[in-house]
């Protein structure tokens, strides 16, 4: 990675890392024994170890000046590796916390391993670690290919990728120490939030400058989605995290929002994190990797534009459906409910567009597990957006809210849609990025696919059952007008479903491990000779080597 940088760029990288190191030193000095001090040490180690990496190759040969006439793929490769590492970490934490709900002894009586601390390590690990790295890596790939231009920077892509991972590390290590600002999907404290602003603005500028260099006259729709993702996440992150630290030497801060406004800001953020972090960027992957893998143009480009603007403008108003039956004014609840129902139109337009693109290529969906990943993602996108609109209706929400139905819905989206489209994209991306003819083992892709499908279905069905059962038990009255079941009764009734859920999650985790192994072996394999290689052509699943995989 350092070999691709000129000596001037290596210097710049070292200066940035020195600044990171000094910032870490200041945090350690100011923080002392506060968790902030521990985080300072982590930042120092991060800066120092990357600095050592740069210095080790500092006097290496200068890069070929010809590099500028190639796409810049090194940060993408590192991004794919980080995506898989976070996937395994985040999903493992998910399985662990799921198991804790069935068997509470699994917290082993330690403070750091209680459910309340482990749960955000799972959500941050999968949403930001796995999802975020996948978004950054694929956005770098897609923007270059669709603009026919190299990334507009040599050091800045590394800054964005590694800086984002530093944020994730600070967030996750903080949770173990009990650092949290208690905001859903935004638990990291003020200093990590400030750092993310710097990283995100750099990302925004890098993306814009790359698009400005494009040779293709029209900006392909996938880039619109990535752009919406970057811009809106910046706005959401800044507004939601406006907070005052109790001192510069302590990790704890208090939000500037108060009362119901705080709830509204938090769920405006929370739901738009789902919309723009977990949907817009992944729709960008859908609109690029689906046509490329299927070797068919998107069914209707116009429809993709209409659904883009629909999603961008409707989603912004949907957040208040998280606050039905609260102190939030009734009309704001109605607004959120109405917009959530309207969202079904652009959401199904995208899902339908994807499925109609595959119409006529069903034999490829049957034969190619990678394309099947993308197909299942589109189906689950359609299902979970329908479910989401339905659950946002107030009387339905009366039954579903605070139950496992919500958890099931989130995972239908996160596993069935987000993770499936990510793995489909990665399996398309990896062979073309490392210039391999195909994945090391198509059979292992197949194994991963079925593990992931089985895991998702078991997870979602057990949570649907348990959620509706919970909701019904909580609202059943006796003839005397008292509640028929105590909370504890409902908890006992959940037990089998919680075990099933942990098993489903475990299957999904195993699939991710299989993927990591398969990708690792693909990277290690000998590159196909340039003459034989047909870049970006999908594997039909009938590849000649399909039977010759004794290494498993």
């Amino acid at each position, binding site marked *: 990675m350092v070999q691709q940088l000129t000596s001037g760029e290596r210097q710049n990288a070292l200066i940035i890392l020195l600044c990171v190191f000094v910032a870490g030193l200041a945090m350690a000095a100011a923080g002392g024994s506060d968790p902030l001090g521990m985080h300072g040490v982590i930042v120092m180690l991060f800066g120092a170890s990357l600095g050592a990496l740069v210095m080790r190759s500092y006097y290496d040969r200068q890069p070929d000046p010809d590099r500028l006439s190639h*796409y810049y793929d090194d940060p993408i490769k590192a991004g794919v590796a980080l995506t898989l590492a976070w996937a395994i970490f985040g999903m493992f934490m998910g399985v662990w916390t799921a198991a804790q709900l069935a068997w509470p002894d699994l917290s082993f009586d330690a403070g750091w391993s209680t459910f309340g601390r482990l749960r955000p390590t799972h959500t941050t690990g999968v949403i930001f670690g796995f999802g975020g790295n996948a978004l950054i890596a694929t956005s770098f790939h897609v923007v270059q290919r669709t603009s026919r231009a*190299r990334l507009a920077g040599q050091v800045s892509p590394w800054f964005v990728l590694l800086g984002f991972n530093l944020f994730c590390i600070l967030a996750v290590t903080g949770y173990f120490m009990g650092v949290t600002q208690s905001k859903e999907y935004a638990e990291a404290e003020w200093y990590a939030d400030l750092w993310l602003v710097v990283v995100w603005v750099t990302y925004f500028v890098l993306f814009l400058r790359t698009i400005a260099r494009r*040779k293709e006259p029209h900006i392909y729709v996938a880039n619109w989605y990535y752009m919406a993702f970057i811009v809106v996440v910046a706005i959401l992150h800044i507004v939601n995290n406006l907070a005052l630290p109790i001192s510069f030497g302590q990790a704890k801060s208090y939000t500037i929002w108060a009362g119901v406004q705080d709830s509204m800001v938090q769920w405006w953020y929370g739901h738009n994190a789902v919309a723009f972090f977990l949907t817009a960027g992944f729709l960008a992957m859908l609109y690029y990797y689906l046509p490329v893998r299927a*070797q068919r143009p998107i069914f209707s480009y*116009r429809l993709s534009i209409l659904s883009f*603007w629909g999603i961008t403008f409707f989603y912004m108003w949907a957040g208040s459906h998280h606050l039905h039956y609260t102190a939030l004014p009734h*009309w704001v609840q109605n607004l959120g409910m109405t917009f959530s129902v309207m969202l079904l139109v652009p959401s199904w337009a995208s899902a339908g567009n994807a499925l109609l693109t595959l119409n006529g290529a069903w034999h490829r969906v049957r034969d190619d597990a990678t394309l099947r990943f993308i197909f299942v993602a589109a189906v689950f996108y359609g299902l979970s957006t329908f479910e989401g609109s339905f659950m946002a209706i107030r009387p339905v929400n009366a039954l579903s809210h605070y139950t496992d139905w919500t958890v099931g819905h989130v995972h239908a989206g996160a596993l069935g849609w987000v993770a499936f489209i990510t793995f489909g994209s990665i399996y398309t991306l990896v062979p073309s990025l490392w210039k391999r003819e195909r994945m090391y083992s198509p059979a292992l892709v197949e194994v991963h696919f079925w593990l992931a499908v089985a895991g998702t279905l078991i997870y979602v069905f057990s949570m649907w059952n348990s959620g509706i059962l919970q909701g019904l038990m909580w609202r059943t009255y006796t003839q005397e007008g008292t509640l028929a079941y105590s909370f504890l009764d409902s908890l006992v009734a959940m037990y089998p479903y919680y075990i099933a859920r942990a098993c489903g999650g475990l299957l999904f985790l195993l699939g991710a491990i299989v993927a990591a192994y398969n990708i690792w072996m693909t990277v290690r394999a000998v590159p196909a000779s340039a003459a034989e290689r047909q870049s970006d052509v999908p594997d039909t699943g009938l590849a000649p080597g399909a039977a010759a995989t004794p290494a498993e």
Partner: protein
Amino acid sequence: MDIDHDTLVGFAKSWGLFYFIAFSVCVMIYAFWPSNRKKFDDAKRNILDRDDRPWQ
């Protein structure tokens, strides 16, 4: 004039609505404008080209 709850509701129910309708009309016009057809068709086909290098 006091900006109270009803003012905000009134604003949201009138101008909010108009702004959405106006915006959706603009998007429709852009998407269906006849001379944009070729641009969109090219865009959706061009990503399938096999190229391994940026254009110079």
